[in-house]
């Protein structure tokens, strides 16, 4: 399956064409070497953690448990996928948490226009914030981390001003979104799945995806190759904002409440971790969609395990730190031998 994740190395599901010219075209199939780990480390980690839980966590092997994990991780997956695309361009988006808050803030104000109306407004808020970040980064050339950091601070404040204190959402539409399901699959999960598929297609099948990764790989060269660098960059941040907003919508549904002050706090770090653990390099040029999903699941399982074992907060944090490093190390560890290339 890892084969199917989009990478700058342009993986198509089809096997590469017949041996090209040059006798060098001998063995190029992947043996379980560093590269292989890079691609699959996160899945191994995931499997390992599942096994651990099956062993130690009471009634882990239940549909209820599965459902809970999925429902809780869904919003994280959605944000992380947006983040993954931004990171693919070599950028980063710290504003996602604040965007979620902003979305949560506007929903109660427009709930009058019905569920969909409110959702639409919420998403627009995300798009606008993304557009701001995008143009500041792409057109003015401010470094992504600082641009999005500023937006993160300001937007959170704005969200609080607009939204005020926490408000319970009694709207049936949101209740359905948060707790209802279709053919036994919770809506939030469905949304996450759809988003994942769309992003995967976008990254591995479309011009946009290829251009995005080229820009992440060498912006200057991409520009000389006539790629619409600025447009692509801007779009990426808009998408990130949109997905963050969508995650916000899902959470409002889950919580039956809108709380701009706390919603999505520190989610940017969780998302980045999920992306990196998923095997997408922070240097850009690659986007591992499936890996990102797996990474988010991994983070979710870690926290669940720690809570289920009733580990105290302090220890939990330390354990989490160690696991994260190990997870990433599993991927890069074997790559060490490959020396830096001139």
């Amino acid at each position: 399956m890892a084969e199917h994740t989009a990478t700058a190395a342009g993986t198509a599901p089809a096997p590469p064409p017949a041996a090209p010219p040059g006798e060098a075209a001998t063995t190029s199939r992947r043996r379980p070497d560093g590269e292989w780990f890079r691609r699959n480390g996160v899945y191994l980690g995931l499997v390992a953690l599942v096994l651990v839980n099956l062993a130690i966590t009471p009634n882990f092997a239940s549909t209820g448990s599965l459902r809970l994990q999925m429902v809780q991780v869904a919003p994280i997956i959605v944000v992380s996928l947006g983040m993954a695309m931004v990171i693919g361009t070599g950028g980063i988006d710290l504003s996602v948490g604040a965007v979620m808050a902003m979305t949560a803030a506007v929903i109660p104000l427009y709930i009058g226009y019905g569920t969909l109306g409110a959702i639409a407004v919420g998403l627009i808020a995300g798009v606008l914030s993304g557009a701001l970040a995008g143009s500041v980064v792409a057109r003015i050339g401010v470094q992504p981390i600082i641009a999005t950091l500023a937006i993160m601070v300001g937007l959170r404040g704005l969200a609080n001003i607009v939204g005020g204190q926490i408000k319970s959402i009694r709207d049936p539409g949101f209740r359905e979104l948060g707790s209802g399901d279709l053919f036994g699959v919770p809506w939030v999960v469905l949304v996450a799945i759809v988003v994942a598929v769309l992003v995967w297609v976008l990254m591995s099948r479309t011009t946009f995806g290829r251009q995005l990764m080229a820009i992440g790989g060498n912006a200057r060269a991409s520009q000389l190759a006539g790629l619409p660098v600025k447009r692509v960059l801007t779009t990426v941040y808009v998408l990130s904002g949109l997905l963050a907003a969508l995650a916000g919508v899902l959470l409002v549904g889950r919580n039956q409440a809108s709380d701009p002050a706390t919603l999505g706090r520190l989610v940017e770090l969780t998302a980045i971790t999920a992306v990196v653990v998923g095997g997408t390099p922070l240097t850009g040029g690659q986007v591992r969609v499936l890996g990102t999903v797996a990474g988010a699941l991994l983070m979710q399982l870690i926290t669940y395990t720690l809570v289920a074992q009733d580990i105290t907060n302090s220890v939990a944090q330390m354990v989490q730190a160690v696991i994260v490093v190990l997870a990433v190390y599993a991927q890069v560890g074997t790559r060490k031998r490959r020396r830096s290339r001139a």
Partner: protein
Amino acid sequence: GETDAPAAAASSGDGGAQTTKSASAPAGEGCTLEKYGLEAIDLKGAKVGFSQSEPDTAAFRAAETQSIKDEAAKIGVGELLVTNANAQLTKQISDIQDLLNQGAQALIVAPVNSDGLDPALAAAKAKGVPVLTIDRKVTNTACSDYLAFIGSDFEEQGKRAADAMATATGGPAKVAILLGSSGNNVTDLRTSGFVDQVEAEYPELEIVAQQTGDFERAKGQSVAEQLLQSNPDINAIYAENDEMGLGAVQAVLSAGKQPGTDVKIVSIDGTRNAVQALVDGQYNGVIESNPRFGPLAFSTLQDFMDGKEIPEDIIIEDDEYTPDNAEAELANAF
């Protein structure tokens, strides 16, 4: 303190005025102008500074700030300077220094933390400005570093929560605790109060899990969900603030159980939403933590200026909302 516990609109005017529980200072032991070494000032027309600890997005904070502002207006304070430390100790220190630099003649401080305000307090002392701390007690010396403390007894709140829980379960129960944020002494006190009381009085209550919900509704919900999943026979949840309690309600619902009956829920604060839940039967008890410090704070300052003796601790009487009185008392909730 019971931070991040927002609720419906923060009005402080209606109901729930604070009443002191233990304020009587044995003669000669209270704090006076002489002891504190100050000149009396007339609060009317004076510049008074209020340093709030956490964002007003929390219902408790909103109500607290509001009540201070209202009272200041009421008694005709010259100018009320308000700062908010956004839960950052260092910011509160500079906030207080800023207030002093701006010429505040008296300070009301809601400390971010019990320790570490020393430099700020020292600055106030140097300027001969009395500091009245509310809702959280600092570990410095009363009547020297600061004037006095007005607030609730958080440990007591924990104890009363345990009592309420026992009443609610009326027998054996497996209890999960949703802790407040770590490193926060309100969390510690509300935990120890509850735990000690349970050990002392209610052996039939078994505490099966203690996980932090950071005083947030969403976090409270997801942690509660995880606890209920991994430990299905949990049938009582003690949340150290209303927000986490309301989160727990959602969690219980999404676990397909009935909050208030299948799983008993008790929390501390007395926000409108929680009391409403109590009215709706989804909740089993709310211990109040009264945020309306305005009147008591200013009257205390006034007494002090009038030369009266001020005791070190002015502990306020917190109400309790039960399924029975909830409906009637709803108006008092903030």
